[in-house]
């Protein structure tokens, strides 16, 4: 065995079996992006449940030669590709998350004040305006719809729609949606103050009526009938959401409800986060599109917030009992963050004004509204 042969062997191993020589600038950039999101999740507590697995997913797949998102020679998906294929591509995980969300949700404030449903509809304004805006920038119709839905501030809906219409944008859309959801306390207050007068912010709303257990039990059935009849395309999301809520309100399957709220939700969140993060490989992610998506996502959130507040102003023209327009911003779903923001802004003006439960109404309406908007888009492309 000559030295030349030994060197050749070492060189061969270094080149073909280690990642070091294959490292690219793009990968380094993506690793920095991953570290930024991990820092935001861990250090700053921004939506850590999602940003942490997403950040780690980005981190993992941006090393060279890693067998994670490809297929083996036999055609079997590699580890994270399998999570992605069966969880996201088959549109299972977002629906299971909706099941958990349904099991967690108390629709009491919405049932007590059904008027707030219209605020949830008005807050979808940004979704449709952004949809047109992105078309001007050369996005295709499907891409535009998937970017538009970011403003609905509903992570699972964004992922569901994007996986269906523009899977190549999944990483950017999910990241933009969750990042801006974490930044709701930063984005919304200036718009809320800009769009309301001091007198409007001081409006006190009448205490919500008590909602009986029987009424809460019937709500998911009524809502499913009406929504699925009008927008059948949204049945997977809404069906699971209302199923989860029915389990909760029935009070007879506490174990199932608890599992949907906790264990199941946590399991799918892990797989969803890491799969979404893993779609952000340098080769596909580093172009102008994701950056534009982040820009449009912000615009979308702003317009959705405006839409919610404007809807309240319009409603107040016709209502005897005025609604505090601060709860309009909660029409973007981001449950319960945006409701908390409305409450906090209200208390800044009047420390005795408790808006939280009033804001939960439009907040929950926002979840239904964004899912309905997603259903509209899905139906449009059928």
């Amino acid at each position, binding site marked *: 065995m000559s030295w030349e042969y030994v060197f050749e062997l070492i060189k061969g191993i270094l080149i073909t079996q280690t990642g070091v020589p294959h490292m690219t600038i793009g990968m380094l950039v993506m690793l920095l992006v991953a570290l930024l999101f991990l820092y935001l999740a861990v250090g700053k507590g921004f939506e850590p449940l999602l940003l942490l697995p997403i950040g780690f997913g980005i981190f993992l797949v941006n090393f060279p030669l890693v067998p994670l998102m490809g297929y083996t020679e036999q055609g079997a998906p590699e580890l994270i590709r399998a999570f992605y294929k069966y969880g996201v591509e088959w549109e299972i995980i977002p629906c299971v998350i909706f099941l958990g969300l349904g099991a967690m949700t108390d629709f009491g404030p919405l049932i007590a004040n059904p008027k707030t449903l219209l605020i949830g509809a008005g807050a979808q304004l940004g979704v449709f305006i952004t949809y047109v805006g992105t078309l001007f920038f050369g*996005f295709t*119709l499907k891409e535009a719809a998937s970017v538009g839905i970011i403003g609905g501030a509903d992570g699972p809906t964004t992922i569901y729609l994007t996986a269906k219409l523009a899977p190549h944008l999944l990483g950017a859309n999910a990241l933009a949606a969750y*990042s801006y959801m974490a930044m709701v306390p930063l984005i919304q207050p200036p718009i809320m103050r800009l769009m309301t007068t001091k007198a409007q912010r001081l409006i006190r709303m009448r205490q919500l009526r008590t909602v009986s257990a029987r009424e809460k039990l019937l709500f998911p059935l009524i809502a499913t009938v009406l929504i699925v009849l*009008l927008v059948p395309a949204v049945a997977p999301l809404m069906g699971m959401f209302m199923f989860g809520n029915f389990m909760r309100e029935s009070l007879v399957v506490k174990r199932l409800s608890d599992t949907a709220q906790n264990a199941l939700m946590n399991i799918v969140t892990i797989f969803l986060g890491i799969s979404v993060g893993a779609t952000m490989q340098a080769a596909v992610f580093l172009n102008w599109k994701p950056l534009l998506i*982040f820009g449009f996502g912000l615009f979308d959130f702003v317009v959705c917030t405006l839409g919610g507040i404007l809807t309240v102003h319009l409603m107040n023209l016709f209502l005897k009992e005025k609604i505090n327009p601060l709860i309009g911003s909660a029409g973007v779903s981001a449950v319960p963050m945006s409701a908390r923001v409305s409450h906090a802004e209200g208390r800044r003006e009047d420390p005795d004004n408790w808006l939280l439960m009033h804001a939960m109404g439009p907040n929950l309406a926002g979840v239904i509204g964004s899912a309905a908007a997603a259903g509209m888009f899905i139906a449009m492309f059928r």
Partner: protein
Amino acid sequence: MRLRHRCFWLLALPLLLSPGGRAWAAFGEDAEKPRPEFSQEEGDWIARLIPRGKSTSIQIRFQAVGGVLENVAELEFAEGRDPDLDAKDFRSGFFAAQIAVAPGAEAKLAVRSSYFTTSTELWRGNPEDPRSWVNAAADRTRLPERVHQLTIALRDGGPLDADGQADGVILAVTAPRDSFWGYAIGTLFIRFFGVFIVLGVLQLGMLISGGIFKRIQARPPQPAVEPHAPPALETASAPGVAAEAAAAIALALHLESAAGRAAAAPVPAEPGKAASAWAVFGRGRLMADRMSAFARVQKKQTTRMQGTSRGA
């Protein structure tokens, strides 16, 4: 500037920097380009394709009247590119159809699909002349099952024959056109108000159900019907005895009685003495379940000890 402000502006910057134009629009390959597959059926040609902005496939049927439709093929958009022509308006693509006729003769080309709407136009053009793309002003016919048919008359060597020669073959280069922006903006309004309608209907449903529930709750509670009210106890008021003292006397009398003694008796330490057979059985099962882990350990130890003694 605080970190969260920095992050916010970092994310907002791309939008502020991006100019409003199509300069940014060149993103790789045209992912939505229709890729038709052709088949023949009873002399007609059928193109099956997924048009732009759709997820499901559609069919476009080509039929020639007064000639033989020899071939229909997809035409690359680049071949017919025109500065004023936007590929997005031609969502199902461009087609070249060859119709065999007698030299200089006339034929009709009918293009039909359930994908077409009342606003769909049939444009014709010449791949050699990019500025030749115009509306062919096709005759429109509505057929059953929401099918629209667009028909144009062609003459071999005439203005609609793309090869321009009276050679017995008419080359018809056509493309169904729908205004992209008309569709995009139109659907925007319809779908936005659609969300209002969905949530409005839900609101109506909830108002009705809420009204019913409120009415049920507002009903005065029905008094509980007691068929046989117990006769009033004859109470003799004992002058000079306080309520507390009376209660204490009653408790003492109860504990003195046999029932009171049984209730206050301690739980029997040994099963089988005072407990029922059912209770003893249940207790035994519970204990057996709890002790199963210990029993396994005990069994292991016994086996080991037996082994050791045998060895000795």
